[in-house]
């Protein structure tokens, strides 16, 4: 006999469950974590380097870097003074909660305030896979063009902050900031936004203040 069984379950529910476990480990250790996503070359590692420099002495920071191959980015973070763990996804287009779980086990969470996870450069896949971070940040950049919110709505909808990097290139590249922002407005109303340049340092102070505020607020809530 044939019969229909209703299921109604999110396809990536197993990853969601593991992500929740990761978040519990982070909460227990009182470590605030962000998932940094962007297209290739938008400036994720540059922003992490600037963040390490800018918050040195304020926060104890580690980074997890996901790349299809190479450890260049983890090496850069290490050179900038952070503990950095490299995950080579071996061809996968995104990090998932399992990879992050194994990276977490290699970190001494007890001596950290902030964990920054640099996801694989990609505007599609990382949006679907929760990692267990408390906030997610999308790094957009001027040379990518102003139509990205329209082409990658799933990515723009899910994030807690949008950093618009490489504003030093605005004089050289056509980029309609109002068109770009209008797309974001519908997708993610009121989302926190920063316009900055990792090259010149312009606008970085606002980002650093926000991030430090987020960590402090979290630590207030989860203080031991």
């Amino acid at each position, binding site marked *: *006999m*044939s*019969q*229909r*069984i*209703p*299921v*109604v*379950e*999110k*396809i*990536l*529910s*197993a*990853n969601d469950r593991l992500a929740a476990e990761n978040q519990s480990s982070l909460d227990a250790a009182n470590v605030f974590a962000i998932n940094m996503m962007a297209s290739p070359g938008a400036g994720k590692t540059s922003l992490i380097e600037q963040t390490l420099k800018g918050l040195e002495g304020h926060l104890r920071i580690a980074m997890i870097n996901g790349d299809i191959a190479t450890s260049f980015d983890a090496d850069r973070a290490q050179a900038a003074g952070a503990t950095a763990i490299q995950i080579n996804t071996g061809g*996968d*287009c*995104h990090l*998932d909660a399992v990879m992050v779980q194994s990276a977490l086990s290699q970190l001494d969470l007890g001596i950290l305030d902030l964990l920054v996870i640099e996801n694989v450069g990609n505007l*599609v*896949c990382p*949006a*679907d*896979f929760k990692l267990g971070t408390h906030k997610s940040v999308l790094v957009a950049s001027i040379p990518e063009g102003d*139509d990205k919110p*329209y082409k990658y*709505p*799933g990515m723009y*909808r899910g994030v807690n902050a949008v950093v618009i990097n490489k504003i030093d290139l605005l004089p050289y590249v056509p980029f309609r900031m109002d068109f770009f922002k*209008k*797309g974001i*407005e*519908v*997708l993610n*109303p009121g989302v926190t936004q920063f316009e900055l340049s990792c090259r010149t340092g312009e606008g970085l102070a606002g980002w650093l203040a926000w991030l430090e505020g987020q960590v402090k607020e979290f630590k207030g809530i989860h203080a031991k």
Partner: protein
Amino acid sequence: MHELAVTESILEIAVRHAQGKNVGRITDLYLVIGQWSSIVDDSVQFYWDIISDGTLAKGATLHFRRVLVVLTCQDCGNEYQPASEEFACPNCGGTHARVKTGEEFQLEAIDVED
């Protein structure tokens, strides 16, 4: 692409829901994929044929229902499908919209036989 991970997930959920119900075979899976959710293409079917082998769901047919994005304007109540480069409400120009449909990414149901 991450279609393999997606396919494995689909199989895990389907088999879990069939367990303990005297199911001999899962024959059909009904998936709902919103336009603004993940890209899931034909390669899911390709992976499916490989990974479902030897399971309760061997040879089952995958049915995809794609759901278009519909936004509800919070300013005037209009429901609309956003254009590719204009998400604002075509009726009043408002940008306060709620996503009514288009973000689904679910296994909705399975058909089974004894």
